Structures are given as structure tokens and as C-alpha cells.
């Protein structure tokens, strides 16, 4: 078969033409904001022509990639392909004991020795990453399993943090006492906030929860007598060490190990919940609310348990935040936080535990190690949320549900 050179040239010219149009459009679009910068003091304008070149070249190249990925998406290739290589990789790693066991051992040793291999600062970052893993897993229950888009998750985080801060400040309650209570407090708020939104559909539910989150933050900011307003609460006790005196660095290491234990606990609990009667009820609720009810599941109770259980973890982490930084103020609990936690769940793959863990590490650690690009972090968050939804709504790690049940026939493994 002859290769028709003219056809190829024609198609290439067409593609280049399309991308050029796109590039020109974006250069026009971003002209005022990217190129022109107003200097209010001298009343001059700074003209940044280089930016226009960057935009032009960037969008020119990106548009090729975009169209390519779009075509693949339309043909449904992405879904099948990814599913196959992941399923195979996952199965391979898990089933072949010779690979699985050493991997786990290395991981465990690394985790245990981490604080001694790296500086205190690095350990602190890792603690933050672990905190976001817990937050992500908690939100995963609400959004990933039950399908309730909660944009105000940060409210429960704040409840946990302020609970500990205030009880510590007024009553001297220690970390260990406050931790479970913070969880309960957050769970209560979860039910309180869940009640009014029971009847709401997806988008409206999202906006109302957003509203709740903002209301709580604004109240914390303005009700000075209660929450000490924007200046926050300082001098919160660190987790007690039962009489042993520790230095700051040792406290960090102590907290790191506490976090490891808590994260493992969280993973255990969430995975058990997921493979249980209540977990299946949540997923049924997410998949089809009408059919779910028809099968005898009380959607009110199911939704409220999802909210309550999800909120509990945020409460725990809030308490930890207060203990870690010994200072909290309302500025830590903005909508942006909720959005970040949401993007961890979305990026990782709704409902997938491994996905959330990977997502949290990715979103927290990457900006730390790519310091040069840290100011672009939020930009990347936003863009990645859009891109994931368009090209890979099932998230990075999780393919479509990889679950097997114990069963009479040739035994299948139960997997995460």
C-alpha cells in the first residue's frame, strides 16, 4: 500500500492550522491580564510581551495534546486500557508473594525510620501529608462512597481543632482526652449539618454545604468572645508524653509516630466500613438513590451516618492540627481547604483507599519538593481537577471498582 504523502501533509497542515488558531485565540484572550500590568504607584503600565510568546507557544503545543487525548477519550480507549494495566499491575504485585512481601517490608522500614533519616522539617511535612491522608479518607466516605458532594468538610475540621483548643485553654484538657471527644463533637456536627440537606440533590447539596462551611468560619472569625476571632488561640498543649520531657524535635518525631498509628487505624476502619453492610448501602445510595430505597435502605439514616462518620475523621485531624501547630485561627479553615481535600479524593479516585493515600502524598509533597513552582500550586490544583474530570474521572489509581468477594467458586481474593 502506498503512503500518500500529500494526504499526510494535508492532515498535518490541518492540525497545525487548528493549533495556530487556538494559540492566537489564547494570545488574544490573555492579552490584558498576562501582558499588561498596571503599576498603581507610578501610574505606568508594564508591558510583558514575553508572556504573550509563552502563551502562544504553550497553547499551540497543548492544543495538539488536548485534541489527541480527546480523540482517545471519545473512542473509549482510555477506560479499557487503564483498567487492564492497572488490574494486571495490582494483581501482579499483590498476588506474587515474592514481590509483595519485600515491597511491604521496605515500605514499613522506611516509614519507621523516616524521622531519623530526614530532618525535623521534612518530618513535619510528612506529618502534614499524613493528616491530609486522614482528611481525604474521611471525605472519601462522604463523597467517594456515599456520593454526597460535601464542599464544607472544612467545618468539621475546624470543629475538631477549636474543640481541643478551647477545652485546653479553659479546662486544661489534654490531647489524648480531647482526641476522641473531638471526633464525637465533629460527628454531632455532621449529623446537625446533614439533617437539613437530606432532600437536596447533588449541586444544591454541594452549595449548601459550602455555605455551612463558610458560615462556621465567619462565626469563628467574628464571635470574639467565643473563639477569640481572627487572632485565634495560641499556646495549645502538644500531646502529652506522660511526664517525659521532650525537645521540640522529639515532639515532632513523637507526633509523627502518633500519625502513623492513626493513619493505619483510619485505613483499617475505612476499608472495613467499605466492605460491610453499611458500606454497600452507601455505594448503593451513590449509584441510584431511588433503587437504593426500593431495596429497603433508609436513605436518611444512610446519609446521616455517612456525614457523621466522615466528619469524625475531620474532627480527629482538627485536634491533631491544634496540637501540632499549638496555634489555630479561622484562616486555616477556608473553602480552599475543602476544595483541596476534595481534589485529593477526586484525584485519587472516588472510593479508593490507595488512591486517596497516593493523592494526598502527591498533592502535599510535590509542591514541597518542587519549591520553585510552589506559587503555581493552586493553579495546578485547579487545572488538574478540570483535567481529571475530563479525561479520567475515575481518578489516577483506582480503576473501576476492583472488588472481589469471598465466594464458593474458585476463591477470589479480597482486595483494597
Amino acid at each position, binding site marked *: 500500500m502506498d503512503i500518500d504523502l500529500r494526504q499526510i501533509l494535508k492532515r498535518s497542515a490541518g492540525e497545525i492550522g487548528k493549533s495556530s488558531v487556538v494559540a492566537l485565540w489564547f494570545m488574544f484572550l490573555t492579552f490584558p491580564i498576562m501582558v499588561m500590568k*498596571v503599576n498603581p504607584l507610578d*501610574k505606568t503600565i508594564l508591558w510583558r510581551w514575553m508572556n504573550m510568546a509563552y502563551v502562544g507557544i504553550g497553547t499551540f503545543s497543548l492544543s495538539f495534546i488536548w485534541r489527541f487525548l480527546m480523540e482517545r477519550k471519545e473512542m473509549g480507549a482510555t477506560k479499557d486500557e487503564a483498567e487492564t494495566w492497572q488490574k494486571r499491575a495490582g494483581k501482579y504485585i499483590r498476588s506474587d508473594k515474592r514481590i509483595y512481601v519485600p515491597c511491604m517490608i521496605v515500605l514499613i522500614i522506611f516509614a519507621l525510620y523516616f524521622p531519623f533519616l530526614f530532618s525535623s522539617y521534612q518530618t513535619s511535612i510528612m506529618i502534614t501529608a499524613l493528616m491530609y491522608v486522614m482528611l481525604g479518607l474521611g471525605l472519601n466516605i462522604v463523597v467517594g462512597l456515599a456520593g454526597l458532594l460535601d464542599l464544607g468538610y472544612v467545618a468539621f475540621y475546624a470543629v475538631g481543632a477549636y474543640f481541643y483548643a478551647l477545652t485546653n485553654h479553659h479546662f486544661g484538657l489534654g490531647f489524648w482526652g480531647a482526641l476522641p471527644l473531638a471526633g464525637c463533637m465533629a460527628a454531632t456536627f455532621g449529623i446537625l449539618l446533614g439533617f437539613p440537606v437530606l432532600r437536596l440533590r*447533588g449541586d444544591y447539596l454541594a452549595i449548601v454545604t459550602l455555605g455551612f462551611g463558610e458560615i462556621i468560619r465567619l462565626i469563628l472569625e467574628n464571635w470574639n468572645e467565643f473563639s477569640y476571632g481572627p487572632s485565634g488561640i495560641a499556646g495549645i498543649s502538644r500531646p502529652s508524653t506522660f511526664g517525659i520531657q521532650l525537645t521540640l524535635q522529639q515532639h515532632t518525631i513523637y507526633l509523627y509516630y502518633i500519625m502513623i498509628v492513626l493513619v493505619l487505624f483510619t485505613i483499617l476502619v475505612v476499608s472495613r466500613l467499605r466492605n460491610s453492610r453499611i458500606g454497600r448501602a452507601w455505594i448503593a445510595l451513590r449509584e441510584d438513590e431511588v433503587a437504593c430505597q426500593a431495596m429497603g435502605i433508609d436513605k436518611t439514616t444512610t446519609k446521616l451516618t455517612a456525614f457523621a462518620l466522615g466528619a469524625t475523621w475531620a474532627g480527629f485531624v482538627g485536634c491533631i492540627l491544634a496540637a501540632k501547630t499549638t496555634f489555630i485561627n479561622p484562616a486555616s479553615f477556608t473553602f480552599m481547604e475543602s476544595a483541596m481535600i476534595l481534589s485529593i479524593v477526586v484525584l485519587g479516585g472516588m472510593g479508593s483507599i490507595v488512591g486517596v493515600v497516593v493523592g494526598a502524598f502527591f498533592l502535599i509533597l510535590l509542591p514541597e519538593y518542587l519549591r520553585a513552582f510552589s506559587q503555581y500550586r493552586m493553579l495546578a490544583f485547579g487545572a488538574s481537577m478540570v483535567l481529571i474530570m475530563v479525561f479520567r474521572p475515575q481518578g489516577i489509581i483506582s480503576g473501576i471498582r476492583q472488588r472481589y468477594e469471598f465466594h464458593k467458586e474458585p476463591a477470589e481474593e479480597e482486595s483494597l
Partner: protein
Amino acid sequence: MDYFLELFFGGLTRGSIYALIALGYTLVYGIIELINFAHGEIYMIGAFTALIVASALSLMGMSGWSLLLLCGIVAVIYSAAYGFTLEKIAYKPLRKAQRLSPLISAIGMSIFLQNYVLLAQTSDFLSFPALIKEFPFMDNITIMRTSELVILITTAVSTTLLTLFIKFTRMGKAMRAVAQDKTMAMLLGVNVNRVISVTFIIGSALAAVGGVLISSHIGQINFYIGFIAGIKAFTAAVLGGIGSIPGAVLGGMVLGWTESFATGYVSSDYEDVFAFGLLVFILIFRPAGILGRTSSEKV
């Protein structure tokens, strides 16, 4: 009494701005049942574009009404372009996806646009030139400023034009058709893609008008104003009944007055809480809004 009237007109002004932005939300929701979370950012970009153009032009010596008009037009064009592009990138590919996907995409886009402006411009508050010159006859009136009057008039005119457009033009009819039944409209030969694009363009243009006006009125802008204005305008749209044009205006007014009187007589710190509280209240007790109709799902 004077104080009351001041608050009244202040509320009317706020309400007008909310109405202008809310119209964008309501139009888009009516057509594709999506809350365009990034709509607030379109408003913000309109304001920024106007600021930049105004600064450039005033350096060249322009001023007065011609400056305002020119800035406004440029801002509208740019916002419309952003809205159009936004739809093509973040929403069009997700038309067939589950409900959560476009909403998450919208949130992502909102964050992206905020930070885009933040990085390309500045995080500081930029002062916006007072483009609206005071009318001489307004000098004796204390309850309302010239800029407030201009805002009211502009909103009234825009809403009227929009209503006429929807009612009497071919495109308007096509928009109504698509809002009612997208598939059927397509089968009848309506170019649904174009209708959706036009909807976004109109909505964005209105938001830009709002952005220019309120920035001239208040005098300063920053990259974050889109978020708050967006949520409040969404509140207004839902309050009045999402998908309804008179509803958006009504909702805007109600919200504007609530905020104005609440901050005037109760407390100004909790301004945003009143707005969010109203939003939560309405969504829980009457999600259809004042003028809306409740719809039921077919099993």
C-alpha cells in the same frame, strides 16, 4: 428616615449587581443544569480587564463617559470570550458525564482562574478609577449617589433587553427550546452547541457589566472578589427561582435589601453570614425559589 432610604437604595444597588451576575447563573442553569461555579471569576476578570484598559487609556489622556464606555465594551468582549472558552474546555466535554463531574470541573476552573489572575497580576487590592462622573443634578441628593443611579438604570435596561431578546428573537426561542428539551431541540434542527455558547456569552457579558459598574462604585478590586460575589449571586438566582430571569432580578433585590438592612441595623461584621444563611435557608425550605416551579423526577 434618611438612613433608611440610604440603606434602601444601597440595597437596591447591591441587588442590581447581584441581579446582573445572577442572570448569568440562571441562564446557564436553565440550559444545561449546571451551576457555573467559575461565573464569579468571569465577573472578576471583567473588572480586571476594565481596570487595565482604563489605566492604559487614561494614560493616553482619555477620560469621562467615553472612557467608561470603552472600558465597558472591552471588558464585556473579554468576559464573553472567557465564558465561551471556559465552556468549551471545562463543560462541553462533560455533557454526558455524571452530575458530579461538571461541578468538580467548575470548581477546578474557578480555582484556576483566580490563581491565574493572582499570578499574572497581583494579590493586592488595586484601586479602580472612578469612571462614573457625578451628575450635577445629583449633588443635592444625599440618599443616592450617581454611580448607584447609573447601576440601577443599567440593570433595568439590561434586564429588559435580555427579556426582549429571549422572547422575540430566533436565538431567544432556540434558547428556550434547548432549556426545555435539549434532544428534541436538536432533532428540530437547533444548533445546540451554538445555543449553549451564546448563553455563556450573554451571561458572561452581563457579569462583566456588573463587574465594571461595581468596581467604579466601590473603587477597588482584587482577584478574590469573584468568589464572594459568585456565591451571593448564586444565592440570588436560587432565591428567585433558578432558570427564571425575573426570578434572578427579584432574588438579587431581596438579597441586596437583606444584606443592606441587616448590616445597617444589626451588624456589619456578619454581612456574609446573612447572605450564606439566606442561601442555606432557601435551599432547605424552598429550593424552587420564589418564582420557581418544583419539578419531580420520573421513575
